[in-house]
């Protein structure tokens, strides 16, 4: 399939069609990344941009890089991002309010200038040059060509990169390691603290989510015996996101129940 994609990408016309369909989508997704409110949506849009870039790599005779892009970026890096998003809490700082006044417009104006400069420079760098193409360089296959370069000309950077990877892994472990400063509260101590807290109301622990009989989803607060919803039965994250349903609509209607019994 990759060979087919390569053959398709090498001819001029299909590559142009591919580019003019995917490039606007990539730019739209990148702009959407800045506009959407939730960080999770930004992550999904970034994953799309990365997949698009992988397709462009494969279209440009860089099959190995295309695959690595999908495996490393959309696979490992984006999963790491989503993992940290879930760890830190999806509700954290989603606001788009600007703290420095007028920063947004300054940034957009400056970026238009910067982008124009970049595009004009790149245009000058490639003006009147025809693309050589990688047919000769990839004569023995893309992976073989890359391997030959990595283990000859680039063997020293390759070793340095491996040292960097190990350092990064150790650094992340050191940073994420959490030394416990107070003793862990055991289940037995928690239970004793509940009973000694003055009121016996908390002695049984927190109520679980869901309403008796009709609905027991995690976003529906449990009903207390007097019919009021128990807010403590909902996870704090769901409460912060506002994903809490009104449990009164799922309340068991006594009259209906009696009729069914007859």
């Amino acid at each position, binding site marked *: 399939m990759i060979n087919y994609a390569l053959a398709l990408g090498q001819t001029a016309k299909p590559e142009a069609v591919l580019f003019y369909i995917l*490039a606007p989508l990539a730019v739209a997704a990148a702009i959407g*990344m800045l506009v959407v409110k939730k960080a999770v949506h930004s992550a999904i849009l970034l994953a799309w941009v990365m997949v698009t870039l992988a397709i462009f*790599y494969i279209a440009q005779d860089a099959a190995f890089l295309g695959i690595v892009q999908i495996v490393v970026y959309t696979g490992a890096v984006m999963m790491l991002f989503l993992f940290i998003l879930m760890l830190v809490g999806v509700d954290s700082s989603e606001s788009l309010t600007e703290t420095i006044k007028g920063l947004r417009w300054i*940034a957009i104006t400056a970026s238009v200038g910067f982008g124009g400069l970049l595009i004009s420079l790149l*245009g000058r760098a490639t003006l009147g040059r025809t693309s050589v193409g990688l047919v000769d360089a990839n004569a023995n296959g893309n992976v073989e060509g890359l391997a030959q*370069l990595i283990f000859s000309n680039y063997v020293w950077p390759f070793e340095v990169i491996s040292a*960097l*990877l190990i350092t990064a892994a150790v650094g992340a472990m050191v940073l994420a390691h959490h030394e416990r400063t107070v003793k862990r509260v055991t289940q037995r101590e928690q239970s004793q603290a509940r009973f000694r807290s003055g009121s016996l109301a908390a002695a049984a622990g927190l109520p679980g989510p869901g309403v008796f009989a009709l609905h027991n989803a995690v976003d529906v607060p449990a009903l207390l015996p007097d019919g009021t919803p128990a807010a403590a039965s909902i996870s704090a994250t769901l409460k912060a996101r506002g994903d809490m349903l009104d449990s009164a609509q799922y309340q068991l209607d006594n009259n209906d129940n009696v009729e069914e019994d007859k």
Partner: protein
Amino acid sequence: MNSANYLYLSALLFTIGAVGVVIRRNAIVVFMCVELMLNAANLTFVTFSRINGNLDGQIVAFFTMVVAACEVVVGLAIIVTIYRSRRSASVDDANLLKR
């Protein structure tokens, strides 16, 4: 098709990423915008590798990917550490040096 189109696309993506770094406040989104800029640079490397007809650009792009992976690992660890002490992932809340 002219290969320079890929360069223009990468310049656009790089600029969009730079804007995102400046205007977004969530540290994780800022980080994702940095990733977008790195990806755009990679596209430039791959395109120039094709224009010049040798694989060196692809090697550099490959090294960039490895460095980006390291950067993500350490950066996210820093974000988690800051979140632990300040209960916030917003770049505006990390202002201890100011006070």
